[in-house]
């Protein structure tokens, strides 16, 4: 347990490093936000200078950084130049949308990939094994925006079984009372079956798109780890003791194989947060990924810094979870 405590503490300097780097990186981006913001032909140089002063951009860099740190400490991520809204409020609205999508996609990927990898490992070289390899190869080699558009074409445009890709909910439905920010869960809590169904259907295609992408590394790693575990000496011992096949595969081999798989899950999850940016665009998902792209295009510093910071925090949290799960699975990791 001390190991876990130390691990949490070690996240703090990492987070500070992220703050410094994102601050500096956004400052070296080309373009002058004041000019961009004041892009009105009637504006004079003095107007632009006024905007710059208003945004604090005329001050020295370290001053800007200290102000930024002070604001961060108060939970203030700044104000978006483009929307005029506080960034923190914007994130509070958008993060649940992204989280719901990513979590469902991740869950789908794990539920499909781990059994596939397991079956492939039990019969290497079999038809199932080749099928898994094919699915995995297709999953990684197709960019998410291509597979996303393909899915939309088939399931919305051709078959018409899934709703239009226009965000989280049909515009004619009202959002359920906000509890978690996850529309499906909030709809269940307030007992609105129709809203739940609609929200789930909207989620399905983007979630599958992201899951397809995550399938490959998970299935391949499960297969490789299972083959390694099944070939190890202690499996031979278990077989020689007459233990049943189910017990050998699930209790002895799979639990050992889960160690590298859990690490891969962490990496895949973090990666999926990045992939979000494209998938959210394709499905008009009002998440943080789409928000981040807009911020880059608009040279909007505050939301961009906020985005990188939030992502870094999630990334650190995911790694923390991976470490904790590893300790729970493997007694050796505790020392």
């Amino acid at each position, binding site marked *: 347990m001390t190991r876990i405590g130390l691990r949490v503490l070690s996240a703090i300097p990492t987070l500070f490093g992220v703050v410094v780097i994102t601050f500096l990186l956004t400052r070296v981006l080309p373009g002058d936000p004041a000019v961009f913001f004041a892009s009105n032909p009637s504006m004079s140089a003095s107007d632009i200078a006024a905007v710059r002063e208003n945004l604090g951009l005329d001050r020295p860099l370290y001053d800007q950084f200290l102000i930024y740190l002070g604001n961060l400490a108060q939970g203030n991520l700044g104000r978006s130049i483009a929307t005029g809204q506080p960034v923190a409020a914007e994130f509070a609205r958008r993060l649940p949308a992204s989280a719901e999508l990513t979590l469902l996609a991740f869950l789908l990927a794990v539920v499909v990939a781990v059994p596939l990898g397991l079956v492939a490992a039990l019969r290497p070289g079999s038809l199932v094994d080749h099928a898994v390899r094919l699915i995995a190869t297709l999953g990684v080699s197709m960019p998410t925006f291509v597979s996303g558009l393909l899915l939309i074409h088939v399931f919305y445009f051709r078959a018409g079984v899934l709703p239009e890709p226009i965000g989280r909910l049909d515009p004619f439905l009202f959002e359920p009372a906000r509890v978690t920010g996850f529309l499906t869960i909030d709809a269940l809590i307030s007992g609105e079956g129709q809203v739940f169904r609609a929200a789930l259907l909207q989620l399905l295609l983007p979630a599958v798109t992201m899951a397809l992408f995550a399938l490959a590394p998970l299935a391949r790693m499960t297969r490789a780890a299972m083959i390694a575990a099944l*070939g190890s*000496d*202690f499996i*031979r*011992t278990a077989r020689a*003791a*007459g233990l049943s*096949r189910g017990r050998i595969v699930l*209790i002895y081999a799979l639990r050992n194989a889960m160690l590298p798989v859990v690490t891969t899950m962490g990496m895949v999850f973090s990666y999926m947060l990045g992939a979000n940016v494209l998938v959210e665009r394709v499905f008009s998902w009002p998440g943080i990924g789409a928000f981040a792209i807009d911020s880059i295009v608009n040279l909007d510093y505050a939301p961009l810094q906020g985005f990188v910071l939030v992502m870094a925090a999630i990334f650190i949290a995911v790694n923390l979870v991976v470490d904790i799960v590893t300790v729970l699975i*493997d007694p050796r990791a505790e020392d």
Partner: protein
Amino acid sequence: MTPLLSIRALSVEFDTRHGTVHALDRLSLDIAPGEIIGIIGESGSGKSVTAHAVMGILDRAARITGGEVLFQGENLLEMGRRARDGWRGRGASIIFQNPRAALNPIRAVGDQIADVVARHSSLSRRAIRARVLELLRHVRIPDPERRARAYPFQLSGGLCQRIGIAMALACAPRLLIADEPTTGLDVTTQAAIMALIRERAREAGTAVALITHDVALAAGNCDRLAIMHAGHVVEVAPTAAILARPRHPYTAGLLRSVPSLAGSLDQLQAIPGSMPDLRRPDLPPCRFAERCPRRLPRCDAPGPLALTACGPGHLVACRNLP
């Protein structure tokens, strides 16, 4: 006396990327109830393959191409998978070299022993726990309650091998195969482990097949010795008979190459040549012929090489006995 285990003309091949390895060729060997037999041979002679074939844990690349393995008269090779699983652990069990790797690294050792006990009995959880502690005491593990909760990485190699023995003996098997059980352990631990195996086996009337490349270890612990070379058993005899008068040229060479049996170091001799490549399609009937100082034209005559009696309980596979 009817043998406990009777391996008859067993042939095993391995398919590898570089051709088929003829690992065992018409191998025959009997093991009597309660005896301790040493199966001796150099690396690649087929000792472990024999053990794995008996246990039914050969890996995927292996193929049994002929022969039978009779256990109390029943052919194990024709047994169904479920029956064979039930037989493992109760009919025969095996302990491996490298004891720590042979145990599941992330499962408490007591639970691993309990898994075996539970598999072959319908005892209650309490009774299983009591049996596990009893087994741990039998293999002289100090503080069994605490050690049962330990993981292999927290135990020494010697303790891990004691756990392995406890697991193997959990269901009182009729035959215990000990595959290089002391390799990798220090010398005092080796002696203690061997003493423990002998003691537990004698007490339960379990037969032991000690697989080793260590002639001195086998000679010091076994009633009979079987010498293997390149997938053949070349000689089987009571330990005293084989030490006093080895009949097969390979056995004789083997004994001359052992420090403790050769008298002084000057008398130590190496056996010239090395084992033939078992992937060769043209292996001679006697696989030792190409290294043999007594080779005659009739040694290469076609037809299988048979084990023939040359003394009381003394079998040898040689066409030109001295």
